[in-house]
């Protein structure tokens, strides 16, 4: 393999695939990026066996070929090279000679044949969405994923493609967030999968750099193909970004069951104002007393917190409410997460009593069920 490429293009390509690589992989080859040069293009592939990613940049290919190189080291070296023009040539050791200006490196690699192939699919479902849409939807639920590995089914975001709606769900057993996207003219596909948390994080990082994202999936795997935006094309990238991931195996719990069917009371709130009030009230809490109390009385919402260590806090905001007085305690993080994640200015809160869940809703098919804390 022999090619010339622009240093910043190389850096851009490596930057897109770097994150997937674990710092402590189970096999040495998983530390490496697979470089493949052909047809005026250099492609980059990395994988951690659960998740793989591919992208490509333009390059002057003199001799086609492939080699794997340690990706973090390569990215560091490329970033530091003195000239924009970089020439790379491989030999049978296997290693790669890298030239740029007066700098020369010979970096030891591992043969391309040993690199685990990214899976390809047959019998797949296919679905296309605007990247911004999917990004917004993911962000409005991903905070609610569980990180408790003993409940691995919940360690991810549930993608549910239904005939008339595409829905995302995440829950950790204490709160549950879902967001839907109605499909005019019906869905091109139906089916479900659970996207692992690590892939969710990677998608959130990569989405929003271009127009559309094409999702294909079967029982075990899912692939996301991301169109490139102009800024990425300007930095030398060609083709699409391709991300392929295992799905979490197992059945996602029937989440509809925990969404309260009837609202007790409902108030409309300014999202940012509520977020600020909860945030300020929570400043006095400690690890020992991690709760804030919401007290609703006629046209008034009071939020208060207390800890033995620091003292008390009290916030109040006006709102329209003429129901009975209700007091509910919540983990403030569980209130702030959805308030931070959705973009709408107005948000609705539904509640019943101190032992029933609070439900945040927006007009955009979003809801977040938050279980309260029982005060002893």
């Amino acid at each position, binding site marked *: 393999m022999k090619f010339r490429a622009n240093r910043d293009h190389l850096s851009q390509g490596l930057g897109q695939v770097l994150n997937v690589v674990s710092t402590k992989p189970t096999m040495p080859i998983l530390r490496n990026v697979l470089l493949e040069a052909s047809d005026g293009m250099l492609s980059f592939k990395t994988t951690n066996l659960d998740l793989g990613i591919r992208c490509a940049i333009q390059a002057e290919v003199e001799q086609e070929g492939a080699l794997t190189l340690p990706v973090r080291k390569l990215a560091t070296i490329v970033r530091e090279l003195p000239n924009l023009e970089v020439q790379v040539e491989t030999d049978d050791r296997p290693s790669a000679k890298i030239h740029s200006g007066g700098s020369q490196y010979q970096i030891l690699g591992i043969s391309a044949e040993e690199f685990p192939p990214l899976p390809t699919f047959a019998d797949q479902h296919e679905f296309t969405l605007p990247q911004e849409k999917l990004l917004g939807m993911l962000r409005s639920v991903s905070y609610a994923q569980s*990180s*408790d*590995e*003993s409940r691995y089914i919940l360690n991810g975001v549930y993608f549910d493609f239904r005939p008339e709606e595409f829905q995302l769900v995440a*829950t950790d*057993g*204490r*709160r*549950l967030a879902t967001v839907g996207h109605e499909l005019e003219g019906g869905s091109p596909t139906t089916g479900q999968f659970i996207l692992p948390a690590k892939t969710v994080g990677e998608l959130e990082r990569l989405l929003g750099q271009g127009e559309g994202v094409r999702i294909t999936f079967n029982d075990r795997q899912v692939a996301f193909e991301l169109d490139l935006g102009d800024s990425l094309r300007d930095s030398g990238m060609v083709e699409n970004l391709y991300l392929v991931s295992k799905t979490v195996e197992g059945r996602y*719990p*029937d*989440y509809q*069951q*925990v969404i309260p069917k009837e609202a007790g009371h409902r108030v409309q709130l300014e999202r940012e104002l509520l977020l600020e009030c909860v945030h300020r009230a929570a400043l006095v809490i400690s*690890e*020992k*007393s*991690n*709760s804030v109390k919401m007290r609703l009385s006629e046209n008034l919402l009071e939020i208060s917190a207390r800890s033995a260590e620091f003292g008390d806090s009290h916030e109040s905001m006006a709102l329209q409410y003429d129901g009975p007085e209700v007091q509910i*305690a919540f*983990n403030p993080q569980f209130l702030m997460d959805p308030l931070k994640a959705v973009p709408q200015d107005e948000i609705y809160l539904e509640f019943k009593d101190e*032992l029933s*869940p609070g439900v945040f809703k927006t007009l955009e098919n979003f809801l977040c*069920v938050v*279980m*309260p*804390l*029982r*005060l*002893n």
Partner: protein
Amino acid sequence: MSEVRKIIHVDMDCFYAAVEMRDDPRLREVPLAVGGSSRRGVVTTANYEARRFGVHSALPVFLALQRCPHLVLVPPRFEQYRALSREIRALLRSWTPLVEPLSLDEAYLDVTDAGRPATTIATEIRQRIRHEFRLPVSAGVAPNKLLAKIASDWNKPNGQFVLPPGEVPAFVRDLPVRRLWGIGPRAEERLRAHGVHSCAQLQQWSAHELEQEFGRFGSELFLLCRGIDHRPVQPARIRKSLSNERTFPEPVASPEDLEARVADLHEELLADLHGQPELRRRVAGVFVKVKFSDFSSTSLSRSGPHGSLSRFLPLAREAFARSPLPARLLGLGFRFHPTPSPHHQLLLPLP
């Protein structure tokens, strides 16, 4: 702490085995081990008859049976041991509220302000436990925890040893360094290489020399080898963790062995935890520790309130896989939240 303290260390004699012998007369005259039911398990406690054959705790069952072919092996009944331990602790508190339990079968008492001679109290405690529970127990009386613990071991089983403050210097001088808290076989080996066997010899070392040889533990050792230990008896110690670890004479080499050992340790750990309801509510996470045959060690932890075996096994496998060497020590434990949360998070009724 200038005042001379009176500390009693109460130590049940081979507790689990003693309980089994008490409850089943057929077990009284035979070499007995309480422990893992499978051949891959290990001995948790052995009675004195079995100890004569070289059977001791942490010994794999198959080795124990080699050493003592007529060994009688009974599975542990942690529920029973825990209940007894609770009752014994309650009894100990009738002499002083300053009772610090170390494990199911050991506790420290601070009787400095009890207004009666510590020796009398220790004798009473042993009589009452023998009388009310029909279980053998030893006790040590000394001015601090370090010496009280050494003392309780002095006339075991079923014995008592009193170390008055005036006799401490002479007692400590002749004490083998191995008896000191924190000195295991390896540190003992290192000291022997320097020609050090007794505390008197160790007392010749300056604090600086000890720190050079043993790092931070060195400065502690400087005090310990003089019989000085200021640690208070803490009845309501806020526990940060609870663990169960064991060194295996036969290093654990295979994943199957590992799983069997982890299962044994887990059973004991859970028994310990269930005896302490206030801790159960505070579980913040679990951890696993593995020490390999080259003495390198590694640990892994996960947060979350669950403590089932299926939480520990993957951690243990992962930690074990970090070195190609067999493991000589395994430990499992729980970490706790600082204090019980005053609020109780309700859960979604997920199916």
